[in-house]
């Protein structure tokens, strides 16, 4: 029920902003919106998750740094730190590509929050960890492979 409320609020606010931006000729209608809707969290593969977030056109960026172990002994707790050097970063999303539901978390940043997020995620198996950053209405992405010796999802 809360998830629904969040979606409704988000899409209402998001639609309004985009409409204004489109009218002003600032944005092409296809460009990404910050903030992933709840449905993106239920996507079963990376493509759908990116589509749900509106980030399918994300460009690779060297300004995104993902700090994570090369080999994680315990997939239930994998520390991941994402730093975005892109000016005007408004959101950072973390995706574990081979998890049952790849989109792990999405952080909208505002009010002086820096392009930095540190957290711990679960990984079912060895895969790429992908960070998707939105800045100025565009999406950027970077990946890092993490090898998992004991999976942390299900079992």
């Amino acid at each position, binding site marked *: 029920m*809360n*998830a629904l409320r969040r979606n409704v609020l988000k899409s209402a606010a998001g639609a309004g902003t985009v409409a204004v931006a489109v009218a002003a000729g600032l944005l092409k209608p296809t460009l990404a919106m910050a903030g*992933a809707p709840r449905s993106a969290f239920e996507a079963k593969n990376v493509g759908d998750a990116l589509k749900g977030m509106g980030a399918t056109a994300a460009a690779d960026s060297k300004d995104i740094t993902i700090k994570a172990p090369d080999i994680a002994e315990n997939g239930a707790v994998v520390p991941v730190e994402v730093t975005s050097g892109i000016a005007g970063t408004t959101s950072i999303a973390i995706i574990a590509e081979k998890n049952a539901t790849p989109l792990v*978390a999405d*952080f909208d940043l505002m009010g002086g*929050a*820096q392009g930095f997020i540190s957290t711990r995620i679960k990984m079912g198996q060895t895969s790429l960890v992908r960070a998707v950053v939105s800045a100025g209405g565009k999406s950027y992405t970077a990946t890092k492979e993490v090898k998992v010796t004991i999976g942390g999802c299900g079992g």
Partner: protein
Amino acid sequence: MAEPMRIRATMAGDVADVKVLMNHAMETGLRKDAKTGQLVPAHYITEVTASVNGTKVLDAGMSGGISKNPYLGFKVKGPKAGDKVVVNWVDNKGDKNTAEATIG
């Protein structure tokens, strides 16, 4: 049932470094109970928000892919020592928790 969460916020130059430790099972809904063989129902935090002195700085969506007892670190530019940080979370069952700390 919501247990307390811990927040530590320190200034490093003009940037506040905030670290939050939440207490939550973060069940994905995919794990089986070792004894009964039944799936453990999903129970995880879906939304975390943080504000500094009443100004929202972070609005996060989460899935069961975040580790048990979630840790979250973020940085905010602008606040001063003595300012208040408030963190809230809501889970998929509607449980919620809130905590605040003073930036030191």
